[in-house]
């Protein structure tokens, strides 16, 4: 049975790539040709992007035309076990740490919070009792503390990096 989801995903990707290829080609075309510096016309900075854009357009067209066949015959990665909710949670936690906490709080504190939160969120028991929750939070905080102190010491003391 054809994999209709993959078929439409490939078609949509092909259209997006086609548009992106066109944008890169246009970007290369309108790029400064440095005439004022009298460079050789064959060495204009936009030449390579123009070629890449055209190549991407061609490949996107081939992808579009081949997507039906591939959906019927091709091998593809299996569906992940978890859904969009888990993906959102992963991205929220990681991005909140990398973009929000790091640079705002001291690195060791940001790392402690992130590691502990990550462990708690993804190991939270389905049937939580006070005992299991206390144990989980303790383990998460201990690992968070070890990681934050270990990584901070390694980079700050051994590699002389000024942490964010």
């Amino acid at each position, binding site marked *: 049975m054809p994999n209709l989801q993959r078929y439409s995903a490939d078609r949509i990707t092909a259209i997006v790539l086609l548009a992106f290829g066109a944008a890169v080609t246009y970007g290369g075309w309108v790029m400064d040709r440095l005439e004022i510096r009298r460079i050789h016309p064959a060495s204009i900075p936009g030449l*390579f992007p123009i070629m890449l854009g055209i190549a991407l357009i061609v490949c996107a067209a081939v992808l579009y035309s*081949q997507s039906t066949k591939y959906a019927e015959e091709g091998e593809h990665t299996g569906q992940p076990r*978890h859904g969009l909710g888990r993906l959102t949670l992963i991205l929220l936690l990681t991005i909140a740490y990398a973009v929000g906490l790091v640079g705002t709080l001291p690195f060791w504190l940001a790392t402690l919070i992130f590691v502990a939160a990550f462990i708690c969120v993804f190991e939270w028991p389905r049937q939580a009792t006070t005992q299991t929750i206390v144990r989980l939070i303790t383990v998460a905080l201990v690992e968070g503390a070890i990681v934050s102190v270990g990584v901070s010491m390694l980079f700050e003391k051994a590699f002389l990096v000024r942490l964010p």
Partner: protein
Amino acid sequence: MFDGFAMIAQAALELFTLTSILHVTWATLLGIFIGSLPGLTATMGVALLTTLTYGLDQRTAILVLICMYVGAIYGGSRSAILLNIPGTPASAATALDGYPLAIQGRAQYAMTLATSGSALGTFVGLVVLAFLAPVLAEFALNFGSYEFFWLALFGIIVSGQLTAGGMPVKGYIAGILGLIVSTIGSEGIHSHVRFAFDIQSLGGGIGLIPAMVGAFGFAELITVMMNSRSVLSKEPEKKGLLPKMADLWRYKRTIFRSGIIGTLIGIIPGVGEDIGAWSSYAAAKRASKNPEDYGKGSQEGLIAAETGNSAVVPGALIPAITLGIPGSAPAAVLIAALFIHGIRPGPMIMVEQPTFVFSVVVMLFMAMIAITVYGLALTKLFVKVLSVPRERLMPVVFVLCVIGPFALTQRVFDIWVMIVFGIIGYVLRRMDYPMAPLVLGIILGNLLDKNMRRGLIISDGDLTPFLTRPISATFMVLTVLTILLGFSSVRNFLGRTWIKLTAGFGGSTK
């Protein structure tokens, strides 16, 4: 040749120190752990470790990265044998016969056989590296802009073709996307800033290490967390026997063949260890007296796969060091690490740093000894490592993904680059786009662009030298053939023509 031996001896004298051995010990062990944990790959290991080598001297930094690379490729066999889950894609062929051996109660035997295969594969590869790299570097001194243009293009095309499974166009697209990323920032001929959109941080371009840490570290973290399941359900049986020398001698041809195939696959730009393992496995099966045993616990199959993937490592370093063109994704990261540590890979390497190639040979030898020792001694420890829940391991990996790229330039911008590439990498993986051509595109973009435009300046805009110079023409023919063979209609047409030709020949002889 005697110069070569003398330089190997000199490198050995310099490297076999207590400090170096200590570095080999921890780096290889770390590599084996990373390789054995499903979801963590050699590329990620090398990329993350690169960020930890800033404070080390040049030689030690390269030593630990090579040990990480060798260890991670070897480490993948642990989980492949014990859990039927390849630790890295390179060990997928290992699982075919390793796991059946494990469920027959011969897990320890299988692991020591895999260890022997990996060590011998690395050895075959490093011997080829020692002999071939200086010759290739000397030959590459004849390369001009035209040749380097085609070589880089051929590398991206062949990598896209061989790593994209049933749909080569996805490999090409990944390669082109990598090349487009490489155009961001100041270009190499006129220093004109391209696609920076007035963002000052983009002026210097996208750093390879943040991009790689994102595409391989963060993207792998998301993949692992999305696919999480309890992987540790089995432990190795304790009644396994250790392989005897006679067992290895019995498979001497398989070992030699797989070692050579793995090394040659490694030399092909951007192809990598998994293809090396599968090619060696297929060749061993074709040549075997007992092909029916393959997939059911064939010792020959296991040793072929492991010898093949480990031999790719030295093979991949041959073009990486002598041409600046990586033979695999981890080798691409290694090239970036070489630049960071002041080594300029390329044809001039034998002129500028003639001992470097031989130092790498000795480093590989040290890593080979380390994997042998660990493989034979630490079977139980690997099982314990595999029992670490991913939920506890992944936040540590992510902390390193964040702080590693930052440590290089002290720019928060590089953390954002890592995040963006992680998300792009995850989406591309989900859509079955291979990562190796993307990496190759990012690393070869500058080489391709500069040599194309430099070649055009030299020829005053004339394309003829790109097509007529002997080495250029050879690479051009290879590139076009590779693209054409990617189309099933062309392959079918060639197959039909071949059948017709052979049938006609057969008819005429009757």
